[in-house]
């Protein structure tokens, strides 16, 4: 467990994949966590799938600042949903995130881990 925090999470924290902005984004959203100053922004470019209301996530990038868990989680999440359908994104739960990170999380750190997912799901829902 210890090593995972050191290696995997730290790697994604120090070298975040998919960090930046999306060209011609179709959805975007950002959230602050006022409890600690974490801020995550997500941008998605989604395209329609013929004959269905579902969409395919062609590109997704994140930006912002936060602790190692929130950044690593957001980054891993973008890799997880890249090229997948938006319905898949909407189906992701807190358990999926915990499994994705592969570590045990306290209640407080769980909030950090879920921030990216919350931003992504709200962006698809078109929330203000």
């Amino acid at each position, binding site marked *: 467990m*210890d090593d995972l*925090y*050191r290696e995997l999470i*730290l790697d994604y924290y*120090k070298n975040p994949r998919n960090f930046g902005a999306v060209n011609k984004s179709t959805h975007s959203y950002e959230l602050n966590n*006022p*409890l*600690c*100053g*974490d801020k995550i922004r997500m941008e998605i470019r989604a395209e329609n799938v013929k004959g269905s209301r579902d969409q395919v996530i062609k590109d997704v990038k994140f930006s912002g*600042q*936060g*602790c*190692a*868990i929130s950044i690593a989680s957001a980054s891993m999440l973008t890799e997880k949903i890249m090229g997948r359908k938006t319905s898949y994104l909407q189906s992701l739960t807190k358990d999926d995130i915990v499994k994705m990170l592969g570590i045990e999380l306290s209640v*407080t*750190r769980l909030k*950090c881990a879920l921030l990216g997912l919350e931003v992504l799901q709200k962006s698809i829902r078109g929330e203000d």
Partner: protein
Amino acid sequence: MSPFQKDFPILQKQKDLVYLDSAATSLKPQGVIDAVNEYNSSYSANVFRGLYSISERATEAYEKARDKAASYIGASKSEEIIFTKGTTESINLVAYAWGKLTIEKNDEIVTTVMEHHANFVPWQQLALENEAVLKIVDIDDEGMLIFRNSKNKHTARMVNLSEIITKKTKIVVVSHVSNVLGTINPIKEIIREVKRLNPRCLVLVDGAQAVPHMNVNVSDLGCDFYAFSGHKMLGPTGVGVLWGRYELLEKMTPFMFGGSMIEEVTLSRSTFKSPPGKFEAGTPPIAEVIGLGAAIDYLTKHTIGKIREHEVELLDYMFSKFNRLSYVDVYGPLIPKDRAGVVAFNVFTENKKLIHPHDVAEIFQRDNICVRVGHHCAMPLHRRLHIGASVRTSLYLYNTKEDIDKLFLSITKVKEVFG
């Protein structure tokens, strides 16, 4: 070694515990635990209501705690001590029972940017509801309130209190000690000047971080209300105190209505007790108040002066180590003896990038080091410092130099992991 450690069972049970979060709540000495258990196991009756011996014993212990609290903070009479759930409730009590009916449109409430939310939000909301003006005094880079004539250096941003206090200022609410910066505000001087400018203006002091650590005498300070928490001064959770000048308490409407606070109830009207009974509706937290009495006994026995001395010694040691680190920002007054044992800071990488307080605390907790991270119920203060969150350590009588050594070892580990 701290001479006090042996009195705290939790430290005997967990020898590795490095508890640096006393600003959140303090550890409990055996004497306090025993006092609470003794009530619960030997005389757990309700107060005031019974004519039988255990009820009388409970009432006696409860009222004795009130006398102890009065004497501990230099109040002229016990009737000026109201037991509440804590500092937050104490302050809300004043905002409701005094403020609601007294603060009128365009009146002024003065507070500061360093306040804990408990001494900020109630006044902010009261000002909004009653259409009053909330004036917020700023701090300088060292975390001192920017009043001229206070201990700090003269800077261009200093203000005279005469620029803040007007005829319309009804109350000034200010913390005695900041729960983030460790700043000890010059309360006596502030109050003297406020009363000189407007004798009718009241002053409420949030003493949650002061009473546990230093000598407080409300008569000497000259304030009108003083609030503090039992659980931060070695007492149980669920109990705190509001001290108020008797003439004020007499005139205030009750905060909560119900049993114990009434004199007579008819179908159409009720009459109420005098203070403090007027403000203690319902069954009080009897066990907890008795526990608070025991906490006061403990602090009195060891003398608060010695406790403060111990903390200043630890602060000196702590700051000597901080001064050698270029990658840590410490907030608040730089001179140890000028501040309380609350020290908030942030750690940075070589490239001056902030290492998130959550990540710092994660590394700390593996070494059993207990700190708090976040905004510490002081969001306006953090915004003023241009930071999102901080790591906060706080000292108390049971901390030792070894605790501080372990803290700094952990800080080095944080640096190793995050660069």
